[in-house]
């Protein structure tokens, strides 16, 4: 596991040299100066964090192997197992995309119906409330029965985790729309279909986005479980596989990738939200 010590030292050394060179010229940099200054405290924090990490693991061994791994141990995983990790990322993204998209679409449609129709809500809401808190693992036996392929079952688990928060929040959003908005529409000759499309749906969009953000987190949280179902690749599968063989450095390495993927998708969702909700006060 010490195979990448040299590489890690070279990278940290290089970054250190870069900062040393930057320090006298930063005041003279134009736009990037403000950016660098803004994140300055974070650069320092990351450096301190890496130093502490090295000290507690590799240097003094306070946090023992194999449960903890020094930074260069993680780096070594990326160097030696990069190929396999890349394939795993591809598989995980495919599973996540299919599961998340189908989940939020179904959840949204169900949510609008629940929020709009009293009868649908009478019969549907109790089910949603019962299903909501059930952990995804509990569905594995019956998904195995219903889905011909394990991939289908995995997609379903991810879809379920993303669909439920979207359904609940869409339903509450649609049912809490100000009644006078409907009155305005009805006065102008709108039918129910128009009221759903042009009043209920836009009025509830802020709620829907709360549900979407929750769905994003839940879907990532459930990936490991979803990839228990006989997957051959994928970050979740990788984590389980490596846990079983005590490859904890590999587990941490895969977890970091997952966290970065999830964190990278959040700004994307923010961009979509800001576009769709530009009408909200304080957005412009």
């Amino acid at each position: 596991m010490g195979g990448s010590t040299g590489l890690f030292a070279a990278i940290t050394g290089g970054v250190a040299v870069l900062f040393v060179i930057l320090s006298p010229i930063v005041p003279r940099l134009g736009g990037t100066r403000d950016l660098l200054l803004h994140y300055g405290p974070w650069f320092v924090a990351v450096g301190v964090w890496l130093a502490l990490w090295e000290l507690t693991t590799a240097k003094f061994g306070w946090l023992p192997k194999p449960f903890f791994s020094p930074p260069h141990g993680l780096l070594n995983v990326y160097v030696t197992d990069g190929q396999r990790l890349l394939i795993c990322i591809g598989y995980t993204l495919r599973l996540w995309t299919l599961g998340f998209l189908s989940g939020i679409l179904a959840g949204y449609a169900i949510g609008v119906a629940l929020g709009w129709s009293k009868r649908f809500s009478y019969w549907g809401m109790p089910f949603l409330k019962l299903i909501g808190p059930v952990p995804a693992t509990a569905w594995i036996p019956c998904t195995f029965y219903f889905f011909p392929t394990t991939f289908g079952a995995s997609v379903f688990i991810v879809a379920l985790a993303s669909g439920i928060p979207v359904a609940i929040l869409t339903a509450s959003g649609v049912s809490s729309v100000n009644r006078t908005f409907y009155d305005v529409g009805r006065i102008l000759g709108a039918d129910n279909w128009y009221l759903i499309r042009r009043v209920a749906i836009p009025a509830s969009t802020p709620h829907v986005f709360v549900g979407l953000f929750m769905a994003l987190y839940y879907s990532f949280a459930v990936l490991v479980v979803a990839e228990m179902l006989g997957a051959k690749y994928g970050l979740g599968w990788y984590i389980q596989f490596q846990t079983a063989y005590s490859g904890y450095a590999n587990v941490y390495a895969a977890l970091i990738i997952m966290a970065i993927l999830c964190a990278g998708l959040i700004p994307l969702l923010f961009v979509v939200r800001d576009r769709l909700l530009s009408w909200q006060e304080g957005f412009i």
Partner: protein
Amino acid sequence: MSIAALAPAEPGISGPISMAIDVHAVSHRFSLTGSQLPVIETLDLSIAPGDFVALLGPSGCGKSTLLRLIAGLERPTSGSILADGRPITRPDPSRGLVFQDPTLFPWASVWKYVATGLEARGRLREEHERVDSALALVGLEAFADAYPHQLSGGMAQRASLARALVNDPALLLLDEPLGKLDSLTRLTLQAELVGLWQRNGFTALLVTHDVEEALLLSSRVIVLSDRPAHIKAEFRFDKPYPRHRDDPDLVTLRRSILATLGLPT
């Protein structure tokens, strides 16, 4: 201003230009938790086609409720309301309503909001210039792309008015539409309202708390009693437009109306 575009479309397409309203022995009560609140009590009211009627009454007496009943947003507890002889059972684009509080759609630009009536009836493509005319009429052309939170209270109320006008209603129900406007815009819009009514010939029912406004605009003032509302007094007068607030006849009328309302003259 291309107000002409807001004139009724070709006859036969847009239906009757004006509408007769018959409120017959209407009572209405709301159920509050455990108790009943009678708001309107056996009210009779006939409005001839093309009339401009003003409705005055103390706050909370049931004026807005009466307009909602005539609009068809609610069904009266008892009694019947007829539009051109046919019972009103649900809202209809031929009966426009400007709500007391401007209820703009926060997610829609002013243009989109005003276009709602045409879009809901699938007529936006053919008649989209009516939206521009309605906006021009209320002086909001420059704010067509603005969102509600970017408007002042008076501008929001003007957008509501444009939204109601775009459907070319045969009956226009106005619930204190000018209440939130500054006095200058108010005077302009009062004149515009009369002009519009004269040109288009719709029936107008205006709720207002301003006796002077009632006298400047309408030819019939109905004073409602305290809740539960019934008709307390009625004043008919025929004066050509434009009217002047200092007109001695109107000043006399104003005194007697204020007296009926129990206010110092």
